[in-house]
């Protein structure tokens, strides 16, 4: 890998996102495809013009002009997808001037678009990319309304135009958190959600006579329109089994809705019901504590039991989802330690979130897929492994972050002519 990185060190910034026709051949790969082909040893992956052209094991000649990368038998996976994060919305959480996650003082709710806040050059983006994450689902957080606003999907190239869908889903907080925000009870949160749904579905007619709906302003009702018709995903956070059952009942009365559940620490208690309702879930395999009264049933086997029951299950690292969303790989590894198969765990951070969020062409290594892939130095789910090279849209990405620059500045400090602190590193 060293030779390869050297070759590309100059080309990285021009190649990324440039859309130039480039052909790459990654040889000698242990390719985890995310398809029925499973894991392919000794694979060659051909990338042409930003897309995967072929994943093969034969000795056919490589395309002329291809840049050849020898993976040396190491793992190659599709780019990892973080199905729930807040990367790019904040630099320093405690500094409100840098923090665009929530807007508790705003008079708007559903109308809040996280895409307006997303900064592809945030320092968290390359840090997350260096963990192997190439695509992000980014959600706002609820301020003083159960409707946090609308989330986005993006790649982690850090380049302008890295947002894929700037209006990907509506995020709604239910459960204990939602109850507190909505006025003090779960009943209040559900009353508000039902009223908002009614407002949105009767928009604009209802607003011809009145400026205000039952729950939403004109602007918020309009923003909720697509989701209320099922044309946009609704992401609901809830944990307690009874809250999840309430959500399932709600979805059965409004079957047009396109719902994904996030959190679901007690999801295993109602796994069959979730599977029957065809509601996908995003869980954090780390959660095994009764951290609140809505998480009493939390267990590290939640993920395994949901998958066993046939629930479409993706993994996320919900703990620090701003700066350490890349820990989703460690989460997935822990899920394996607690009963999930290695294949299912990798799928839960690649093809499954791609399917949930309709990211066509992502999450798998197959012909015509988007050229997102990661070359690793070991089993991707192992805590001692790391990517050696990340590709996005068929282009190798910079493997530097502000963190790696700081590390290099202080690594092997030697006294010189100038004091340690007197430095100007050259990129």
């Amino acid at each position, binding site marked *: 890998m060293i030779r390869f990185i050297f070759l590309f060190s100059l080309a990285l910034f021009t190649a990324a996102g440039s859309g130039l026709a480039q052909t790459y051949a990654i040889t000698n790969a242990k390719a985890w495809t995310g398809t029925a082909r499973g894991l392919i040893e000794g694979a060659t992956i051909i990338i042409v013009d930003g897309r995967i052209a072929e994943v093969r094991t034969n000795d056919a000649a490589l395309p002329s002009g291809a840049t050849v990368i020898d993976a040396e038998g190491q793992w190659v996976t599709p780019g990892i997808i973080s199905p729930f994060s807040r990367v790019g919305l904040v630099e320093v959480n405690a500094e409100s001037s840098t923090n665009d996650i929530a807007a508790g003082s705003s008079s708007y709710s559903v109308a809040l678009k996280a895409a307006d806040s997303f900064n592809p050059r945030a320092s968290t983006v390359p840090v997350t990319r260096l963990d192997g994450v190439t695509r992000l689902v980014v959600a706002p957080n609820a301020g003083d309304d159960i409707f946090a606003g609308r989330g986005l999907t993006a790649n982690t190239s850090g380049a302008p135009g890295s947002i894929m869908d700037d209006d990907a889903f509506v995020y709604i907080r239910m459960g204990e958190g939602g109850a507190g925000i909505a006025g003090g009870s779960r009943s209040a949160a559900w009353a508000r959600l039902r009223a908002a749904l009614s407002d949105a579905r009767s928009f604009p007619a209802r607003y011809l006579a009145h400026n205000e709906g039952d729950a939403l302003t004109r602007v918020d009702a309009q923003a909720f329109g697509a989701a209320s018709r099922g044309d946009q995903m609704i992401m609901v956070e809830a944990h307690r089994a009874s809250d999840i059952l309430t959500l399932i009942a709600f979805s059965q009365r409004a079957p047009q809705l396109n719902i994904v559940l996030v959190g679901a620490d007690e999801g295993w208690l109602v796994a069959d019901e979730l599977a029957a309702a065809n509601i996908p879930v995003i869980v954090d395999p780390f*959660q095994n504590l009764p951290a609140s009264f809505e998480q009493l049933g939390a267990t590290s086997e939640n993920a395994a039991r949901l998958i066993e029951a046939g629930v479409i299950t993706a993994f996320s690292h919900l703990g620090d989802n701003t700066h350490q969303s890349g820990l989703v790989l460690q989460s997935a590894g822990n899920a394996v330690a607690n009963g999930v198969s290695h294949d299912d765990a990798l799928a839960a951070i690649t093809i499954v979130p791609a399917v949930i969020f309709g990211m066509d062409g992502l999450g798998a290594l197959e012909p015509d897929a988007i050229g997102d892939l990661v070359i690793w130095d070991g089993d991707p789910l192992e805590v001692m492994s790391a990517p050696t090279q990340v590709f996005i849209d068929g282009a190798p990405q910079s493997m530097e972050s502000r963190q790696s620059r700081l590390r290099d500045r202080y690594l092997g400090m030697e006294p010189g002519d100038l004091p340690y602190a007197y430095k100007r590193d050259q990129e």
Partner: protein
Amino acid sequence: MKHWIGALMTGALFALAGCQDAGGSEDAASGDDDDRITINKDPYPSTYEAISFNPVLITNAIILDGEGGFIENGSVLMQGGDITAFGADIDIPDDDKLITIDAAGKWVTPGIIDNHSHLGVYPSPSVSAHNDGNEISAPVTAEVWSEHGIWPQDPGFTRALAGGVTSMQILPGSANLFGGRGVVLKNVPGRSVQDMKFPGAPYTLKMACGENPKRVYGYGGGRFPGGAPYSRMGNLAGYRTAWAEAVEYKRKLDDYLEDGGDPPARNLELETLVGVLEGDILVHMHCYRADEMVQILDLADEFGYEVTSFHHAVESYKIADRLAEAGVCSSMWADWWGFKMEAYDGVRENIPMVHDAGACAIVHSDSDIGIQRLNQEAAKALSDGRRAGLEISKADAWQWLSLNPAKSLGVDEQTGSIAPGKDGDVVIWSADPFSVYAQAEQVFVDGALVFDRNDPARQPVMDFELGQPGEGDAK
């Protein structure tokens, strides 16, 4: 400062108690007057008792001894609660009661010691009634003791046990300049915190640098008594004011012990600080920024005490040489960063860079989730260090999890490594504990099996969990 002085006047009414405590008689011994009043330094003594268990012989194990040693195929013998032998070839006692565990293919390490936990003081569930970790009523609360806020029924203790944690330090939070005393626990469930207290462990003192104290007090707009500190300048002034009072109080105590007369009124806050000045209480200081740590080292010199470990210490890599020179430990995360300004310069090679400079590196959790997989945190740090060119063995890295934290807590004579004579605090791992797939299979504390992943009878369930969803479930 005036507020807390006022508050303590109430405490001062309790003049030195006439407790003739044998354990705390060190002060009295220096005077010749038998009527001299002494202070009981251990009024809430440990009632911990090791669980009775047969002798255990673990064989065929891959052993990391926690002191940098590695044995590819070795045995560990525990008798009477202690490790009595270990190595590639040991004498096996002739004892009918000996339990032999064939650990072929498994790894054995000393139990993990987390020197930064808030289990019990911020327990699960984290409801408002359970916020017992920060006495934020004043910036200097050296008089409070974390053990007085610990709820021993915290289910988090059992999850940490399943992660191979055999001892831990429970610290007050970092809201205050002086947060109060920390306590070292054996991770064995008890009905009272005294039932968990590590016998013979010294007390510790939690102090905090930087953003937290000035945010909680100064930024609180006067909501909390004092209004100071508002700035890092105020932080330093606050430490110095308190230490100056402690020096003065110590002089009065010394004078009394030397010359008799009226004893100085008891002052619980200053007693803790005097304990530090006398070397009996170890200072654990929350400090992120390199420049602040250097200032704190000067502060300690100014008043004649030692800092045992900086905590969080996300910028230790910038001053690793100075920390090595000062002999101060850094208790660190593998990869937390960016959640506040003083954490913005966190790098993933912090732990190995500190280690590589010859300074004392410790992996800590500060988290009820992180404490469950500190071995994985060490693994991440180790691999990041290796990728940066720092050659560190797994055997050396395990010191970050056991011997170094034991040293920082003053219990390294008792635990922290697999060595004859030390407590039988030992973990059998299903696989290489630097792997994400490894799990603690069996955990021993003082030679007794306290957790067994394959035996529900050895998986404690806390009172709180009884009758709740998930009671006794796999956690």
